[in-house]
């Protein structure tokens, strides 16, 4: 009688454990699916940041405020913007492209020295930098080859003519 009772209790326990095991598997599956979705979502937002960095690189090459034509920056416009001071220039650019943005442009003129373009030294310069934030790490950016139209390209005896240089644009997000 006692052995039969114990056997009966084991059967009940077996049944309960089996049920709990099935429930645990289902909960585990739900947990896995939720984590998987979160990882996918995270990967998507990471991709979005890279997309934004790429977009910024393309965008600044296309806004007529800075360029002569698509893919060709105007050095006069860049220097005019830089001469407004870093905070105003950045304020202007952020109003166009959003926050946490930076851009640098270096002309490949064979000169190893990087010379920031200012009101005083224009056009004898080869570098512009906007929205520099020393407190933040440049997180995601693209480096793209671009053309730069130099309004004061050649100073001839009678006239001043333009020329086109090649430069490297670095644009991205902090």
């Amino acid at each position, binding site marked *: 009688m006692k052995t039969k009772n114990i056997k*009966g209790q084991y*059967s*009940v326990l077996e*049944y*309960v454990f089996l*049920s709990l095991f*099935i*429930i645990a598997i*289902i*909960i585990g599956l*739900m947990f896995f*699916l939720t984590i998987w*979705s979160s990882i*996918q*979502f995270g990967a*998507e937002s990471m991709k*979005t940041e890279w*997309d934004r960095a790429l*977009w910024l690189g*393309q*965008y600044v090459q*296309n806004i*007529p*405020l*800075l360029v*002569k034509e*698509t893919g060709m920056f*105007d050095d*006069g*416009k860049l*220097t*005019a*913007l830089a*001469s*407004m001071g870093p905070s105003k220039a950045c304020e*202007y650019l952020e*109003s*166009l*492209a*959003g926050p946490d943005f930076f851009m640098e442009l270096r002309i490949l003129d064979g000169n190893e020295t990087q010379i920031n373009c200012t*009101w005083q030294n*224009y*056009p004898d310069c080869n570098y512009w930098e906007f929205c520099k934030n020393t407190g933040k790490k440049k997180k995601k950016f693209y480096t793209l080859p671009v053309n730069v*139209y130099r*309004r*004061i390209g050649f*100073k001839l005896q*009678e*006239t*001043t003519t*333009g020329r086109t240089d090649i430069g490297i644009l670095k644009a991205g997000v902090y």
Partner: protein
Amino acid sequence: MITLFQLFKMIFGIIVAAFILYALLNYSGSYSVFQESGIKAKILNNFRETAQDVYYSGNAITYTDFSAYDFSGTRYEPLRNPPLIVSEAGEMDIWFPLFFVMGENVYIHRGSLDYKFWKFYFVEALPDMNIIFNPVDNTPDAWEIMQGIVELMPDTAGTERKIYFGLCDGDFYETNACGGKPCSRNDFLNAQSTFSATRFDKCTASLPQNSRLVVISSGCTQGYANSSICIIPSGSGVGNFYISGSPEKFIYRDSLDLLSAVLGGTEQDAFGKTQGEKFYEYKNRIFGERLKIASDITAKRSLLVTGRLNPDTESTDYYCRSVYISLEGITNQIKSLVSNRNYYTNTADQTNLKNLLEQAKLNYQELVNRGCEYQ
């Protein structure tokens, strides 16, 4: 005879099964909503990327992904800072000038206003629609207004999209006005001279769905025509217009002022503000912000370049200097004018701005003609 253990198994089984079923149904419901939101967010994100590509390239395209899900709750909020596309899947910011009207299939097209020293690019993302004009004042000024609006719209001839233009005369609306077929942009512009010979009565016809009625009449007042944009023609190019449902009288300076109101339409939000009014304000805000930067840069650049040109009166540079100096003065005036965020609410400012922009355009063209600047 059923044993106690069998009874226990049955009751326990029912309880466990009910719990599992409930949990699974509940979870699968939430999961499918989550997945659908994710797909919708992706579709909206793809839309933004496509519109950005159009902004860069100027190549128009049809975006069809909105037809895959129900986006009826999605709305464009251009007056938020930055402008947002709001849906149940979340909010998405927009950093380039965009006039977006939701539809299953939208045609994305880039338009521009060219001031020579600066171009204002904007993107229109529009579903199939009919823009119906009712030129009660059949005058050259009225036709000029219509032409200005139509020129900024996309030409959908040869595509599957149907953005058409038509005319309404009293209770009659002509659907096939261009040689027995609906008028696409270029058809309408080409056929204008044949239309202008007609006398038009105030429109009372029932118009097809997705229509925008544009009334042009010197008699426009608030409530003159229902569900329409009512424009008072002006010889100077600066005038007034009304949007049904908005109590205000608006000022237009260029065709995009009118087009933005037309595209927005007369539908009101929960606060009673029409989408047309929002689009009009958005256009002027973003235009003002960008014009301020453009004029500031142009003024400084003119000064910068002038200082580097050969000052010798014998030099060809000499002819550039005076025009650059003039351009610098004009663009500085433009900058100070648009520094006031509400510049577009004052007729005198709008007239002044129109004149200054015209002068700046002429100055820049003069620089191009003299070989001092690029086109």
